[in-house]
């Protein structure tokens, strides 16, 4: 079986909702209430979600709403991201072909627009956004709003079942899923407001004189058992962007077949929703994400045929690689994928050795019998919104691509902040530290923090960051950050936060 629900898992227990019926192109299927439509479809063995105009198939890739491979017509609304839309009884799901038209009866699917105003809006509820919101709230900003397009708070932590490095203060030894729960609880205990299934789609500056930042968000809301979409205009005095990152793609023949997935997407399917998106996998890329996801695939009962890595050495932490190696998974350095084999979906993959200039060596090609190809070739910061918000971007390869130019307080503009993977791909631990700095800086700039408190928090976290980044890996990050951190903090952004 290519796809299957995971019933037994060494770490996870899946709490599924009640069984509900829905239709796919008129055919009746069932799934669990509240799980993403995409998961229910895969569990029913249905994996071609839409076809491009030329007939090429598309199936899920990222599973967190960032790519556009899972768009379908749901209850009459085209281009619905089925990976972030929860299943409900009686949903009408239809395969999309080429460019869809507008919905026939708009009024049924939408709720009227509304407007709200908050002192601080945090866009993104991953480790960076959550710690930022908590810190700002603790320093006196009472009306903080967290907007996240996911179905739960936690961002990428929600799928990290492995235990994290670091030190105790930042939850070392705990699993990502546990850290997500702790942060979620802290948000709840403080009564911090959250808007889930809310995607911020734009930042409008000039058009709105009543606030420093105006954000446009599209929010799904349940009205009498059906999801309706509404537009919310959010006026904010300050905004912290913590939108994380998206998985990178890789060019190779047939790379768009169904079954070529982002490693993070596979992780979401397996670890959050208990669905096995394949039975035999090839992992492309031996960085931390690749080897960790390979290990988690083994735990989920997926056979991992190999991990190929084009570089001469493994990029992941040694101990993560050693965990999969001792389960007998070959990690093939100086190897790459040449093509995916199959018509609509992956039925195999061809790999080959590369020479010193990364060219495949003829005669070394080998076909692997796999039905799932996991791409883990890096993450790129999701900078679209900060760019609209006026940030200046600079390309820094080591940090994942374009990132915002900022000061040491994580300000990219007056009352605008970035934190986490968005301000350079690193780790959840540093994302939490950066979130604290941004949250404290925002509380200070908004004039809410008690005297000296913001600077005390910031200095302490800066020390933690320095210690954390003092190893060889962290030092390279520190060096790369020099290209985007402006010193001293510009006066027009708020200047120094001193005692």
């Amino acid at each position, binding site marked *: 079986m290519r796809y299957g629900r995971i019933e037994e898992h060494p770490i996870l227990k899946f709490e599924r909702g009640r069984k509900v019926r829905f239709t796919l192109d008129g055919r009746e299927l069932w799934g669990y209430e509240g799980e993403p439509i995409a998961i229910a479809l895969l569990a029913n063995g249905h994996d071609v979600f839409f076809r491009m105009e030329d007939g090429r198939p598309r199936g899920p890739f990222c599973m967190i709403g960032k790519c556009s491979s899972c768009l379908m017509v749901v209850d009459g609304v085209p281009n619905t991201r089925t990976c972030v839309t929860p299943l409900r009884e009686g949903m009408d799901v239809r395969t999309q072909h080429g460019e869809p038209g507008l919905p026939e009866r708009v009024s049924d699917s939408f709720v009227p627009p509304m407007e709200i105003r908050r002192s601080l809006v945090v866009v993104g509820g991953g480790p960076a956004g959550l710690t930022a919101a908590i810190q700002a709230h603790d320093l006196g900003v009472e009306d903080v709003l967290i907007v996240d397009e996911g179905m739960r708070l936690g961002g990428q932590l929600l799928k990290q079942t*492995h235990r994290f490095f670091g030190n105790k203060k930042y939850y*070392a030894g705990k699993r990502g899923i546990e850290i997500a729960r702790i942060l979620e609880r802290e948000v709840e205990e403080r009564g911090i407001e959250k808007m889930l299934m809310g995607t911020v789609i734009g930042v409008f500056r000039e058009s709105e004189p009543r606030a420093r930042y105006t954000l446009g968000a599209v929010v799904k809301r349940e009205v009498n058992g059906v999801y309706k979409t509404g537009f919310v205009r959010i006026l904010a005095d300050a905004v912290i962007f913590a939108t994380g990152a998206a998985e990178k793609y890789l060019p190779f023949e047939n790379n768009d077949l169904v079954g070529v997935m982002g490693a993070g997407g596979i992780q979401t399917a397996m670890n959050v929703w208990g669905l096995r998106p394949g039975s035999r996998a090839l992992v492309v890329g031996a960085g931390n994400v690749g080897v960790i996801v390979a290990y988690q695939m083994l735990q989920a009962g997926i056979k991992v045929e190999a991990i190929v890595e084009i570089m001469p050495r493994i990029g992941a*932490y040694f101990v993560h690689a050693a965990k999969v190696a001792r389960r007998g998974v070959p990690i093939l350095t100086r190897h790459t994928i040449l093509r995916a084999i199959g018509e609509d979906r992956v039925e195999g993959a061809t790999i080959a050795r590369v020479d010193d200039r990364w060219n495949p060596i003829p005669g070394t090609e080998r076909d692997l019998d796999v039905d799932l190809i996991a791409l883990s070739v890096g993450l790129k910061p999701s900078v679209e919104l900060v760019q609209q918000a006026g940030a200046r971007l600079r390309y820094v390869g080591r940090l994942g691509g374009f990132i915002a130019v900022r000061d040491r307080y994580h300000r990219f503009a007056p009352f605008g902040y970035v934190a986490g993977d968005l301000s350079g791909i690193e780790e959840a631990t540093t994302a939490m530290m950066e979130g604290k700095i941004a949250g404290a800086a925002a509380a200070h700039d908004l004039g809410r923090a008690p005297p000296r408190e913001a600077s005390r928090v910031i200095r302490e976290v800066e020390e933690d960051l320095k210690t954390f980044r003092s190893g060889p890996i962290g030092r390279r990050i520190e060096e790369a950050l020099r290209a985007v951190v402006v010193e001293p903090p510009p006066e027009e952004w708020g200047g120094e936060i001193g005692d």
Partner: protein
Amino acid sequence: MEIEKAMERGYLLTEEIEDTFPSEERLRRGMVAIIECPQEIPCNPCVESCPFGAITMEGGINGIPVVDYDRCTGCTLCAQVCPGHAIFLARILDDSRAVVVVPHEFLPVPERGEEVKLLDRAGRDVGRGRVLWLLKPEREVHYYLVALEVPRELWKEVRALEVIR
């Protein structure tokens, strides 16, 4: 320690680390921790977990953990907290038998007394061993430490197990 070669394949060879191992004399005295964590990464729960101060790290959180085998009592606390699953324990029982404790996070979970397949650092089948005891930490999440009785000469090699039913 030279780890460049290990970074090409994903695992260490015994000869690349055995000079850091405890002596056979120490192994005969009782259980002792063996840490296979040769890279400078920001992580230190093992140091913090040791009640005997037996694990030290030079240069702060990014240092490489070193075990003082005279102080180590083989209590397993460090192996329980290591996020990298990089801590094993071993002892030599007699001329033919040794014990190796390995982390196990897969299903099925073996039972006491069960015979299992022994895997080395590269996942190669190196023989059979018997489960002496299992330790399930008191957390909601499962993460087992499994003590395996193995042929004496294999204490340097066995680093994982596979259930064969």
